[in-house]
C-alpha cells in the first residue's frame, strides 16, 4: 500500500514542481497570473509541445533527435518559398512542407535503424546538412508576404483559445492515444526497455525505429508551420537550438533518457514548466543569458534525478 502511494507521488512529482513554480511566479509578479499572460504562455509553448510529442517517442526508445530544430527551419523556409515564390496554395504548401519534414525524419530513421548509426551522430549530421540547405534556399534573407489566412494557424483564436494551443492539445491527445491504445505504441515501450528481447518477441525493431524518427520529423514540421504562421516571415535561423528546449521539456517530463519509461501526461507538465520559467523570467527582467544558465541547470536536475534512480541510489532504503 505504502509503496503504491510513494510511486503515485513520484509519478506526479513533476506536476507538483509545476504548481510550486506557478505559485512562486504568481507571488513574484502579479501580471503573471493575468488570463492574457497565461494564454500567452500557452501560445508560446505550443510549438515546443507539438515537437515534444515526436521527441517523446524518440527518447522513449533510448534515442535522440537533434535534427528537430533544423527541420523547423527547413519547413519555415520551404513553406514560405512555395507560397511566395512558387505561388502554391496555402494548403498545398503546408502539406508539401510536412511531407518534406517527415522525409527528413525518415532519413534519420534510415541512418539510425538500417545503417545502425548512433542517433546522436546521425541526427547531428542531418541537423547541420538541413540548416545549411535552408540557408542556401533562402539566400540568407527572410521570406515574407503570405496570404492573410495563413496567420490563423499561429495567431488565430477559437473563442478565447488560441489556435496553436488547440493544435498542441490535439497533438498531445494523439500522442497519448498512440502510446496507450495502439499496438505500435506498446512496441515503443518494449523496444525502449529491451531491444533484444523485443526482437525475440517478434517486433521488427528496425521498422519501429524508422517509424519513430519519421513521426518525430513530422511533429517538428508541424511545429515549424505554427512558428512560420506566428512570426509571419521565414527566418533562415528560425529553429536554431529549438531541439534543446524540446529535449529539456521531454526529459523534465520524466521520459527516461535510457528508454522504456515515460508518459505524455507528464511531458505536458515538462512543457508547461519550461513555458512558465521562460515567461516568468522575462517578466522579472532576467537576461536571456541568465535564462540559459537556469535552463541548463534544470536539465541537469531532470536528467540527474533520472540517472540516480537508474543507478538505484534513490530506491535503496
Amino acid at each position, binding site marked *: 500500500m505504502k509503496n503504491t502511494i510513494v510511486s503515485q507521488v513520484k509519478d506526479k512529482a513533476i506536476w507538483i514542481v509545476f504548481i510550486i513554480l506557478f505559485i512562486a511566479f504568481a507571488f513574484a509578479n502579479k501580471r503573471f497570473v493575468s488570463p492574457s499572460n497565461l494564454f500567452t504562455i500557452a501560445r508560446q509553448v505550443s510549438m515546443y509541445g507539438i515537437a515534444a510529442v515526436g521527441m517523446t517517442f524518440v527518447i522513449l526508445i533510448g534515442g535522440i533527435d537533434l535534427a528537430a530544430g533544423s527541420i523547423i527551419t527547413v519547413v519555415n523556409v520551404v513553406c514560405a518559398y512555395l507560397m511566395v515564390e512558387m505561388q502554391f496554395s496555402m494548403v498545398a504548401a503546408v502539406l508539401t512542407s510536412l511531407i518534406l519534414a517527415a522525409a527528413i525524419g525518415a532519413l534519420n530513421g534510415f541512418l539510425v535503424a538500417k545503417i545502425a548509426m548512433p542517433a546522436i551522430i546521425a541526427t547531428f549530421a542531418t541537423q547541420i546538412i538541413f540548416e545549411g540547405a535552408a540557408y542556401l534556399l533562402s539566400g540568407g534573407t527572410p521570406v515574407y508576404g503570405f496570404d492573410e489566412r495563413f496567420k490563423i494557424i499561429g495567431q488565430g483564436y477559437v473563442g478565447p483559445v488560441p489556435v496553436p494551443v488547440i493544435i498542441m492539445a490535439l497533438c498531445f491527445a494523439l500522442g497519448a492515444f498512440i502510446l496507450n*491504445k*495502439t*499496438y*505500435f505504441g*506498446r*512496441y515503443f*515501450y*518494449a523496444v525502449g*526497455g*529491451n531491444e*533484444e*528481447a*523485443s*526482437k*525475440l*518477441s*517478434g*517486433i*521488427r525493431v528496425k521498422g519501429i525505429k524508422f517509424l519513430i524518427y519519421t513521426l518525430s520529423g513530422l511533429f517538428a514540421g508541424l511545429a515549424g508551420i505554427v512558428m512560420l504562421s506566428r512570426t509571419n516571415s521565414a527566418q533562415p535561423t528560425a529553429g536554431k537550438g529549438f531541439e534543446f528546449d524540446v529535449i529539456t521539456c521531454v526529459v523534465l517530463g520524466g521520459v527516461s533518457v535510457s528508454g*522504456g*519509461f515515460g508518459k505524455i501526461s507528464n511531458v505536458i507538465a515538462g512543457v508547461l514548466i519550461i513555458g512558465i520559467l521562460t515567461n516568468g523570467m522575462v517578466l522579472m527582467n532576467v537576461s536571456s543569458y541568465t535564462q540559459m544558465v537556469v535552463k541548463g541547470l534544470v536539465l541537469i536536475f531532470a536528467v540527474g534525478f533520472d540517472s540516480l534512480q537508474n543507478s538505484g541510489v534513490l530506491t535503496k532504503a
Partner: protein
Amino acid sequence: MVAAPYFEKTRVLKMNEEYVLELQHITKIYPGVVALKDVSLEVKKGEILALIGENGAGKSTLIKTCSGAVIPTSGKIVVNGKEFSSMTPQLAAENGIAIIYQEFNNVKGLSAAENLFLGNPIKKGFVIDKKAMEKEAEKAFAQLNIKINPKTLVGDLTVGYQQMVEIAKAIKQDAKVLIMDEPSAPLTSAEVESLFKICELLKAKGVSIIYISHRLEEIFRLSDRIVVLRDGQYIKTLTTKESHVDELIHLMVGRDLTESYPERKKCIKEDEVVLELDNLSGNGNHDISLKLRKGEVLGLGGLVGAGRTELAQVIFGSAEKTGGKIIFNGKEIHPRSPREAIDLGIALVPEDRKRHGALLDISIKNNISMPIYKRISKASVINSKTEVDTANKYKKELLIKTPSINQDVKNLSGGNQQKVILAKWLAANSELIIFDEPTRGIDVGAKFEIYKLINALVESGKTILLISSEMEELMGMSDRIIVLAEGHMTGELKKDSFDQKAIMRMASAVVGG
C-alpha cells in the same frame, strides 16, 4: 566495516612445500546454491594439472577463487606456503598466479608490446618509451618461441596469437601458476599445437599450469595429473599415465539418477515430421541433420559452447544459415527474422530469461500480447478486452502466481517469469517450441511445474526441442537425444539407450578442427 579480506601467515608445515598452490576445503555458497563443496587440490611445481568436469561442475568458480573474482565462503588458498582466506586480483598477481580467461584481457587498439606492458609501461620522463618496450617485448616473445612483431596491433592478431600475448604477459609478470580456462576452444588445430609447445616449454621452466578443457584427448596428451569435479564436489585425482578415458567419463557423470520426472502419455505421431534439418550450417554449426516429430521432445545435449543455442537461433531466424535446409511441416522455410519464424509457428524460450526472454519493465499482460498485438488490434487500436482475457486465460492455465496481470514481470519469481514467456508463445499459437535451458536458476518446485507444462504441451500436440546442460533433466524429459560437439552432430540416442557416459563421450568428442 568488513574485516580484512584475507589473512596471511607463514606456514610451519614443511611437508607440503613441494606444492606451489594448494586449495584447501574450498566451499562457495550462493543464496540457494552450493557451487563448491569442500574442494581441495594441490599443484606441484612444474606440472600440468588438468581440471575436468561436466557443465556446472564448478571448474570456473574454483579457479575464480584463485584470482579473487570469487570469494570463497570457507576454505584456504595456500600459495608457496602463504595462507589466504581469499584472494584479490592484486594479491594473486603479487603471488604469481595468472589466469587466461576465454575472454582476453587485452586492448585491441594497442600494439602487442604495449599490451605486454599494460598498466605498467616503461617511461622516459613523462612519455612512454615505445622503443624500449618493443625491445623487451621481443625478448619476452623469443623466450616462449612466439613469432609476433611487437609493433602489430593486438586487434590485427589471430585469436591464437592474442592468446600467446596473454601468456607472455603473465610470464613477464613472473607468474608461477598459470591457469587456463578452455584455452584450446577458440583455436585452430595448428594453433593448438603451438599452444601445447608453449605449455611444454613453460613446464620445463618450472611454471605450473592448471589446464581446463573438455577435450579429453588433449588432457591425455598434455597433463601430468587430472582432478575431476562433479556437481561442485571434488571426486578424484588421477595420474594421467595410469588412467583411461572410460574411467574419466565414469567419474565425471557417475551420479545416481535420483530425481523423478512427471509421467507423460505417449503422444508422438511417428509419421508427422514437424521440423527437419537437412545438412543445416550456419552460426558456427556444420551439417546438422535431424527430424523432429509431432508430440516429441527432442533433447539437444552437449557442453557449453557446443553450438546448441546457436542452432536454435538459426531455426528461429535470429541468425543466418549458410547452407542446408530447414523444412517445417513439409515446406522449406527461410526465416530471416524472429517475426517470420513466429508467424510460421516457431517459438524460442531463450536461455537468458532476463535479457532475452521477458520484457522485465512491462506488465505480464503486455508481455503475453507482444507477439499477437497486430492480431488483436483493429486499425492499430488494441482490443483491450481480448488482451485482458488472453492474459487471464494463461494466468489460470499455467498457474502464474501474481496478484494481477498488470504486475511488471520483474516482480515475478524466475519460474513465473518463465511461465509468462511460455504464455506468450501459446497465445501466438506456436507449434514448435524451442526451450533453451528452461529451468536454469529456477527452484526445485517450480522446475517440476515447468516439466509438467512441457508434458502438457506435447500431449496437446506441440513439438519441443529441449536444450539442456543438466544431464538428468535432458535424460528425464527427452524422448530422444541428439548430442552436439563444437558445432557438429556427434551422436543420437533413443530413450531406451540413454546413458550418461555415452552422452558425455559424444559431447567431448573432437570433430574436425
